[in-house]
């Protein structure tokens, strides 16, 4: 009896400790989660506060102003906004066939074995290469190739510009959509696929009618992730885009992106409105990213509800 009692009390003690540990664990999770929220809100708040001098000086016409002139304190973000959207979406369009092909091949056709592993690791390695390396590679290898192409097409052969930047970006963002897509495709329940096969579907038909519809939201999430990466990329883009604040007239024309302008001009922005205009550029980039993400989430939701 006595032994039983001590055993019982011991057990109560231990449970108490376990409960405390549990509470502590939960609390730390909440704190870490909330600190992320605080961080993002803090960044947003800082961006807004620091943009006030520029907002006061230029107002909303900052958004569609076409001149960026630090000497006369006139700032317009439009050429860079356009440059960011052009390069990012162009990169996305170029990258999608590649990332989907890789995802389908590694997820469905060749999911196991050394070759599959090797390919998968290689693709993931693309994401690990520092962007300045891509920039240099682009400048030395890709630019002359694009220049040759431009000479053939009969446009001004700069070699540098929106198109080259989009090509570099496309390569850089392939792994994001490809990796996520591959995981999604592997998660498709085999009974679904087997059922389709048993009805006489070919492999292509199974992919088209079973795998892709099932993984649509995941594939789209991968694209969204890629797009986010493309919007914010700085170093590789700035090295091959031509850095001019003129509005691009074609996809082969030089241009500039918001992230690239910030990186280029931030350290030597020597008066308040100038610095503030650059920070406002960061704010615009922030808002654009948020809008695109929200729109993306909407689309994913619609896909999954169907």
């Amino acid at each position, binding site marked *: 009896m006595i032994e039983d009692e001590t055993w019982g009390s011991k057990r109560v003690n231990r449970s108490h400790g376990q409960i405390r540990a549990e509470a502590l664990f939960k609390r730390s999770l*909440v*704190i870490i989660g909330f600190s992320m929220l605080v961080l993002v809100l803090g960044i947003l708040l800082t961006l807004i506060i620091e943009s006030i001098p520029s907002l006061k000086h230029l107002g909303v016409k900052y958004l569609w102003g076409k001149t960026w002139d*630090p000497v006369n304190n006139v700032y317009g973000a439009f050429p860079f906004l356009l440059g960011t959207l052009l390069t990012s979406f162009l990169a996305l369009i170029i990258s999608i066939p590649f990332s989907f092909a890789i995802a389908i091949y590694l997820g469905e056709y060749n999911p196991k074995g050394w070759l599959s592993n090797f390919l998968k690791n290689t693709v993931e390695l693309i994401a690990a290469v520092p962007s300045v390396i891509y920039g240099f590679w682009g400048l030395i290898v890709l630019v*002359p190739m694009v220049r040759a192409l431009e000479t053939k097409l009969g446009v001004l052969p700069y070699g540098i510009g929106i198109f080259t930047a989009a090509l570099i970006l496309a390569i850089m963002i392939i792994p994001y959509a490809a990796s996520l897509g591959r995981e999604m495709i592997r998660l498709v329940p085999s009974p679904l696929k087997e059922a389709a096969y048993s009805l006489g579907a070919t492999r292509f038909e199974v992919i088209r009618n079973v795998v892709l519809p099932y993984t649509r939201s995941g594939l789209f999430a991968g694209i969204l992730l890629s797009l986010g990466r493309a919007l914010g990329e700085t170093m590789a883009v700035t090295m091959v885009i031509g850095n001019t604040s003129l509005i691009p007239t074609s996809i082969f024309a030089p241009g500039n992106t918001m992230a690239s302008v910030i*990186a*280029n001009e931030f350290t*030597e922005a*020597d*008066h308040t409105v100038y610095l503030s205009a650059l920070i406002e550029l960061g704010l615009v980039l922030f808002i654009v990213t948020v809008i695109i993400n929200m729109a993306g989430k909407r689309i994913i939701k619609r896909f999954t509800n169907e």
Partner: protein
Amino acid sequence: MIRLFRNSKKLVLLSLIGLVSVLGHQNKLMAQNDDKTLLGAGSTFIYPLFSKMFSEYNQKTGIQVNYQSIGSGGGILQLTNKTVDFGATDGPLNEEQAKKIGVPALHIPMASGAVVITYNLPGVKAHLNLTPDIIAGIYLGKIKQWNDPQIVSINRGISIPAFPILVTHRSDGSGTTNIFTNYLSKVNPEWSSKVGSGGAVNWPAGLGGKGNEGVAGLVKQTPGAIGYVELIYALQNKMDYALVKNKKGRFILPSLTSVTAAGNINLPADAKIFLTDTEAADGYPICGFTWALIYKEQNYNGRTAARATTLLKLLWWNIHEGQQYTTPLNYAPLSKQALQVAEKILKSATYNGNSILK
């Protein structure tokens, strides 16, 4: 849940307090720092020279100088925030920066550099001659072909290919651009009214490359390209560069000698001048000083008199014995005139109103 939330609020508060105390600490850092270590920040252009000078000075005197090459703008900001003993800049303080500092700051010339016009013209071996109007015309986007009559007429004997001109410029804000656009504004009224001068401007034409290496990369790759880089960079990378016609009408090859010569003029007492388009007969017209920036009154933020003296002695050494390290590193030493002005400026620095260097 509410309790948890309150806790996280407390956490945020704590981290904020932590942040503030770190920042506060940084402000006191300099005062607490021992007087054997000086702090400086600014110009990246002068960094190789400064690190050589400071390591020599350290061996001689035991004084350590910790110089961070964060860019001229950053150096000015650090000095304004009183976190460094001296800043270094390739452009003089502008009105707003001077207003923010609030008290008089001294510009002491340390060495000079130059901006050279580089180009890629296959088959052209000799140095091209260029005039101010041609350079401005090219950068305004008006002269579009290398075989433009204006260029051909002053380059007799050189067969210039009929390439279209690709204009390149710096995309990042820089002292190099500041000197170059200041020069163009001085020599060309149209440039002055349309574009103006500054570390970054609204370029009417051309492509931007990041840093000297970015511009050099564009120029090297593209036949027909023209760009501007620091003399030091062109020398080290064996790039082609042009002779430029100076104010006295002579075509001058940029070199350390012609850059020093450009500063051999009557300088203003505060040395706040761009060495562009100067009166010097054998001076290259696109040059500029790099200045060390210090507060005129050295007693601030609880600094000791000893620390102020150490700083002034270091800068004095820089403009005298230190100058021997300029030429080997491809910097142009100060001219005689510049040295005299620099000495006077250093002597005007005070501690509690009394001059520090006698």
